[in-house]
């Protein structure tokens, strides 16, 4: 691969997804594009990158999907889910007690581990049984990942990453060498392929947005744009959860960090109730 081929790949990736490709990631590019090289019958990666410049849409889409990071795990970064369970959810259950409606969006859901982890916590809280209407939307730029998430099948390796064994037994059924998320939880989540650079117009107003481990791949301008548009669909008292390695510059971006809860931000200054529940 020469410098101009990598630069073209970087530019198309940035233009289509907002992702910034670090210059020295040649081995990562080779690893991720190798299956695309085979699938499209190219001789090598250089041939693929040359062809990419002719704007073959199916090839561009396959390259984008191969270059996006899809690594995930159930209850990844356990503290985030503890914050959702112990701080965000109890406050919303009080504040939405009348409407009994809760709308949650997982913005980069990969193979579905995140929205299904959220669904398990909502199931634990017994919200459906209490008559709540839950809208749980999960999106990802990668259509293959979204299709996998919708199916809800996971390997033995995947179900052992972050998932306590009691949850595996209670929330999954075994199907040969795979494990499938329980139908009840699968039906709680609406999946859709979605690029965060596109219009958020189809999304409902949300009470909680999980946007974890994705902002860190964007440049500053794209981060601000995504955060700004999340702000537009997030309820005034809504919560935004980002990854532990991702920090927002607090109120400068119109978000306020929760006390003692890294990665948790509110659209408006946290109310006393939340601080009380946070202990």
């Amino acid at each position, binding site marked *: 691969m020469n410098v101009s081929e990598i630069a073209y790949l970087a530019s198309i990736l940035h233009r289509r997804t907002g992702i910034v490709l670090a210059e020295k990631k040649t081995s990562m590019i080779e690893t991720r594009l190798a299956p695309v090289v085979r699938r499209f019958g190219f001789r090598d990666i250089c041939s693929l990158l040359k062809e990419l410049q002719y704007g073959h849409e199916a090839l561009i889409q396959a390259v984008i999907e191969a270059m996006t990071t899809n690594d995930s795990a159930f209850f990844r970064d356990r503290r985030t889910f503890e914050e959702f369970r112990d701080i965000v959810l109890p406050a919303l259950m009080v504040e939405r007690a009348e409407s009994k409606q809760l709308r949650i969006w997982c913005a980069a859901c990969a193979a579905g581990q995140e929205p299904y982890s959220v669904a398990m916590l909502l199931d634990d809280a017994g919200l459906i049984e209490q008559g709540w209407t839950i809208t749980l939307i999960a999106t990802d730029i990668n259509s293959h990942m979204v299709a996998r998430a919708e199916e809800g099948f996971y390997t033995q390796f995947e179900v*052992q990453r972050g998932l306590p064994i009691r949850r595996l*037994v209670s929330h999954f059924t075994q199907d040969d060498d795979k494990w499938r998320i329980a139908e009840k939880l699968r039906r709680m989540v609406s999946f859709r392929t979605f690029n965060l650079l596109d219009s958020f117009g189809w999304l409902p107003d949300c009470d909680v947005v999980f946007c974890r481990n994705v902002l860190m791949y964007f440049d500053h301008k794209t981060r601000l744009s995504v955060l700004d548009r999340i702000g537009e669909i997030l309820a005034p008292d809504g919560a935004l959860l980002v990854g532990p390695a991702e920090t927002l510059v607090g109120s400068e971006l119109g978000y306020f960090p929760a006390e003692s809860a890294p990665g948790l931000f509110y659209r408006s200054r946290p109310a006393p109730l939340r601080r009380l529940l946070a202990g």
Partner: protein
Amino acid sequence: MKTCLVVDDSRVIRKVACAILKELSFRAEEAENGAAALSACRQEMPDVILLDWQMPSMTGVEFLRALRNEARGNHPIVLLCTTENDASHISEAINAGADEYIMKPFDRSLLEAKLAEVGLV
């Protein structure tokens, strides 16, 4: 330093598990079957037990049931570590008193993650 008893009839598995556990700052001891493990627990109850299922004379689950009836037998956190990977075996282990379950094969990251889940690393 936390102590871990590795119970497995495979010498190779015991060595591999003990090496990982030592890297994770555990004091690791070995037992090659359920009876030897029960005897070791009566001398000194470990903090955690990594337990194989299929072993001669006393299976892992038979050992687990016997352990939980011992004085201080509820103290150790027990992680089944086995090729018995079907839901019915997992449920049987949980009912017998297992705290977590590792489906073989395992590596350092999986063992470390499971130990973290039960609050030991």
